[in-house]
């Protein structure tokens, strides 16, 4: 096992810039989740590590080895594709052993390694079957086992759960996590699903437009996003954003107002925006709370997302599932200053 480093990776396809100076490091044994919207370059980054794309500039290091110019085969990285990429004409066992056979390992040894890998992901009973005889979950396991069988230095997983149904996704998520813990393997895991990112990663890298916006533990990117993009991308439903003005020593943001303090005076010299997570909007009759009209109620089992209009702004409130306010009824909502995020309206940077 070894760590993984991407240094200043640039990659363009014609006029389209896929990666611009991407910097990323996964420590040895770390599960680093790369998350971002479609087209942010996360899959390209993974393919650059695998050697399927050659970067225009920058270096890829696996451990201490510079692999930038090496063929995929010489990098000792295993990839799990979103579509699994199982060979339809080979049995599950032959699929798992494909890379070992390709490297001319003896049949007997291949059989052992295939069994060992299959046992790790609990798919021993399907080894004799062909992919078309397997369920989606079983195919996923076979694809994982194939990646494991070769004992690679790093695992590259490209949205491996996106073709599974919701329940299976949750189970498999937990299994990949526990697999990672048992093997202590370095894994680069790409997903567009922030829930996967927050629940699985040792650290999370949030990407946008070909570069990393923030890398940190799941807690860090949730509680202390470096900018408005990260703040909005992480969290369901997304962050509420209100424009901020100030008058008479108070910040005014939609229906809310806060006393200015500390270096707020200095911050207020530029245009500002206030971010409030839906879970931090509290419905209560506390003094100073603002009046909001219920515009839409989304029931999501244990929670209810209440869309309200307040002072001309649409806000989303995350409330317990027991709450079912009537449309058009009025609520009192409030938020603590400590639970808000202040952004530079122009650069999107988080201010504190």
């Amino acid at each position, binding site marked *: 096992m070894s760590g993984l480093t991407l240094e200043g990776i640039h990659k363009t396809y014609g006029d389209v810039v896929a990666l611009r100076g991407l910097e990323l490091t996964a420590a040895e044994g770390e599960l680093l989740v790369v998350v971002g919207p479609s087209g942010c370059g996360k899959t390209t980054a993974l393919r650059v590590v*695998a050697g399927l794309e050659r970067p225009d500039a920058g270096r890829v290091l696996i451990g201490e080895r510079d692999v930038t110019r090496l063929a995929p085969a010489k990098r000792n990285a295993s990839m799990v594709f979103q579509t699994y990429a199982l060979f339809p004409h080979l049995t599950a066992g032959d699929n798992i052993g*494909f890379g070992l056979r390709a*490297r001319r390992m003896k049949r007997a040894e291949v059989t052992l390694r295939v069994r060992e890998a299959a046992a790790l992901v609990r798919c021993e009973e399907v080894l004799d079957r062909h992919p078309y005889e397997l369920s989606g979950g079983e195919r996923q396991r076979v694809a994982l086992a194939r990646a494991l069988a*070769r004992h690679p230095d790093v695992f590259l997983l490209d949205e491996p759960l996106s073709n599974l149904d919701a329940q299976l996704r949750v189970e498999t998520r937990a299994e990949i996590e526990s697999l990672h813990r048992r093997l202590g393997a370095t894994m680069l895991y790409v997903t567009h699903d922030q829930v996967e990112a927050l629940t699985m990663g040792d650290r999370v890298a949030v990407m946008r437009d070909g570069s990393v916006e923030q890398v940190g533990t799941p807690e860090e990117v949730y509680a202390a996003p470096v900018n408005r993009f990260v703040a909005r991308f992480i969290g369901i439903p997304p962050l509420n954003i209100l424009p901020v003005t100030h008058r008479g020593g108070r910040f005014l943001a939609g229906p809310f107002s806060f006393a200015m303090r500390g270096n707020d005076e200095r911050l207020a010299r530029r245009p500002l925006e206030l971010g409030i997570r839906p879970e931090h909007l509290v419905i209560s009759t506390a003094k100073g709370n603002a009046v909001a009209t219920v515009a839409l109620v989304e029931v999501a089992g244990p929670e209810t997302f209440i869309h309200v209009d307040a002072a001309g702004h649409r806000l989303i409130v995350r409330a317990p599932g027991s709450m079912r306010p009537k449309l058009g009824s009025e609520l009192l909502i409030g938020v603590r200053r400590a639970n808000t995020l202040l952004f530079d309206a122009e650069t999107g940077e988080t201010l504190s």
Partner: protein
Amino acid sequence: MSSRRGLAVMLAPYLLGLAALIVVPAAITFGLAFTEYDLIRPADFTGLSNFAELAGDDVFLISLRNSLTFAAVAVPLRLLGALGLALLLHRRFRGVGAYRTSVYLPTVIPDMAYALLWLWIFNPLFGPLNLFLGLFGDFSPRWLTDPTAAQAAVIVMSLFQIGEGFLVAMATRQEIPGELYELASTEGARPWHVFRRVTLPMMAPTLLLLLFRDTIFSFQANFVPALIVTGGGPPPYATTYLPLFVYRNAFEYLRYGYAAAATLAMFVVTGVVVYLQWRIVRRWRRSFVV
């Protein structure tokens, strides 16, 4: 109009064509095979005597041998050519359209024009082929007058009309998901291993179809070249294949019954060859995939 009647009306032109051009002639041929018929006198039922005569007819046996040899040499070469060109040209790159067109073009040239063109190419004195071969020393086969060279010439001609097989093979190759190749490369498979374990098995069903189809086709294909370019010769009947044998007997010697019997024999031979191929392929496939 009910949907059944609609269906019947839509199918009618095809069914009529099928009946008029295939079913009826086939039935007549089958019947004629047991008669003596010369277009002038009424057909005379002779039982199996046509077949008995075929069995002892040296020209028929030579034709049969020629046809089998042609199939045995030309079909694998044609298939290899189609597969090789498909693997070369399935990717997109600058000018690939022109290459693909030039592979396909000889297939759509009318047979007659194609044959006349080759008649010129094979000319031993001023044909471009021997001029070209002359560059490499004193090697100028007498293409159309030497028996072996004439048989080779007919095979060479057939090797350029592989457009359909090429197209089907190329489409099949393009259908294989690129990720399988990407995976193979990250798994460290070398080109030969990738070809043997990924490309070939994934294309196998199509290649088998092409093999059977081309085999059937090869028993009928060489009629025009044999008639126009080599005239069935040079002696002794070096390029008289089954189709030409049938043609000569029917339309030159006016022995329709005998020609029909030879046609039937040709049909049976084709069936037997395809059946044998299928048997071999079945056994081979079992050991192949593992």
